[in-house]
């Protein structure tokens, strides 16, 4: 056969690189910019521009101290619990609901307005309402996490279904697929890319919800840790707690992105 065959090599699988598919020069540039930022921070802390800005080294030391302390791990455990509960709820409700909305267009058209509204409004405004009705518990911060992330997860699952290639739908119909087979074998895999993007958006929103809720609820999790450090003027501890929270969020997001790469390896590079 004289047809040309485009068989690309396994892309982005080389383990040696720091970041998948990124050139060494780009990695150097990134590391350089991080180093510059840290140096600027160190200078800002030493210049005594504000007593509330600790130096990078002080913050790092406080961070190491925090990592070795019980209250930090307890706080992280509590926060992790609300995050896990809220996200689990958002996934359990959002994905089936979004897929259903895509499959039943009338339902989708009717419900999408509410989700678009939930995405548009500043969700933080509902926090006092949640606290008022449910009190200050792990469950109320889980609910807030849910409210922050569920609309994104739902709308992306919905968009994913509407992304189904009409040619594949016709193919399945021509092969006499049942509605169930069509859903399981065509709709779900077709919407997977959008669905995973939704999960990632949802997770980053969940972190925002979690931290905002805990700062307002105060006797909980890392929010409490941050508030305590603030009220006791331990700014190095405050910065370290914030930094560690950000790092935890980044680690989870990166893990999700890896999962995405794993599941969607069939996509054209």
């Amino acid at each position, binding site marked *: 056969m*004289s*047809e040309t065959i485009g068989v690309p090599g396994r892309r982005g699988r080389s383990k040696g690189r720091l970041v998948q598919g990124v050139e060494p020069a780009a990695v150097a540039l990134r590391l350089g910019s991080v180093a510059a930022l840290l140096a600027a921070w160190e200078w800002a802390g030493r210049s005594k521009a504000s007593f509330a800005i600790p130096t990078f080294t002080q913050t790092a030391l406080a961070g190491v101290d925090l990592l070795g302390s019980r209250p930090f791990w307890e706080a992280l455990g509590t926060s992790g619990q609300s995050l896990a509960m809220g996200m689990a709820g958002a996934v359990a409700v959002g994905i089936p609901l979004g897929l259903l909305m895509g499959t039943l267009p009338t339902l989708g058209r009717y419900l999408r307005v509410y989700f678009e509204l939930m995405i548009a409004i500043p969700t933080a405004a509902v926090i006092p309402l949640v606290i008022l009705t449910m009190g200050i518990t792990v469950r109320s911060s889980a609910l807030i996490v849910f409210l922050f992330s569920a609309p994104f997860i739902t709308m992306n699952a919905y968009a994913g279904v509407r992304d189904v290639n009409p040619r594949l739908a016709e193919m399945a*119909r*021509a*092969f*006499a697929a049942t509605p169930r087979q069509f859903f399981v074998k065509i709709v779900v895999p077709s919407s997977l890319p959008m669905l995973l993007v939704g999960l990632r958006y949802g997770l980053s929103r969940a972190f925002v919800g979690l931290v905002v809720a805990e700062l307002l609820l105060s006797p909980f999790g890392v929010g409490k840790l941050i508030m305590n450090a603030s009220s006791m003027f331990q700014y190095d501890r405050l910065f370290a707690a914030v930094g560690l929270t950000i790092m935890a969020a980044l680690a989870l997001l990166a893990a999700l992105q890896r999962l995405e790469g794993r599941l969607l390896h*069939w996509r*054209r590079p």
Partner: protein
Amino acid sequence: MTAAPAAAPEALEIRVEGVSKVFGAVQALEGVSLTIEAGEFVTFIGPSGCGKTTLLKMIAGLIRPDAGRILIGGRPVEGPGHDRSLVFQDHALMPWTSILRNVAFGLELRGVPKAERQAAARRYIAKVKLTGFEQHYPHQLSGGMQQRAGLARALAVNPRILLMDEPFASVDEQTRRLFQDDLLAVWGEERRTVVFVTHSMEEAVYLSDRVFLISPRPGRLVEVLEVPLPRPRADHGVRGDPGFTRLVERVWDTLKKLQ
């Protein structure tokens, strides 16, 4: 569940009786009647928008006629069925899974056990000359090879009628000619009824026993041309035959009046 036996099933006759279809303000088809014999290879040809694909999809059971009816082996078409399968213009392979699973997909939908459907898929992958590409993803194959996979998927369900919607429209001429000969070879081994839609006059004449010429808006059957050229056509050097050229010119004479 029907498993694919090694031998091809008996081909079926297709009767189209007074079929009409309107899309909005466009009369896609008007009073089309024709009969395609069991085991025959026919093509529908006509200018863009003449309703040839619409007619093919009606035979497939994907579109319902507004008037008239279509009978397959004497039974009216109610919808898609296991006796027919379709090869799509843009291949319609699932990008997220291997060629092997794509080719076996029709059988998977019918609940054929995995080992059995994979064996059938491998057999047809070999027939369309894609052996070695079972584990590749569709995007790793060229356009012509994707079409071959689409053909293998259609054949793997062992249909009695094979319907092909401009499958070679977007492949280069060289690939197209190789594919045409391979298609005829497969058809020669397992005589199914084949309905092939194309806008290439050479292709229509080269492949068919009969060519159906269809006019655009309203889509009507204007002429049926017999192609009495010997088979297998590759072995007889039909492309160089003066009779072949004359028939292509006859198709052109009719089509140019329809523009």
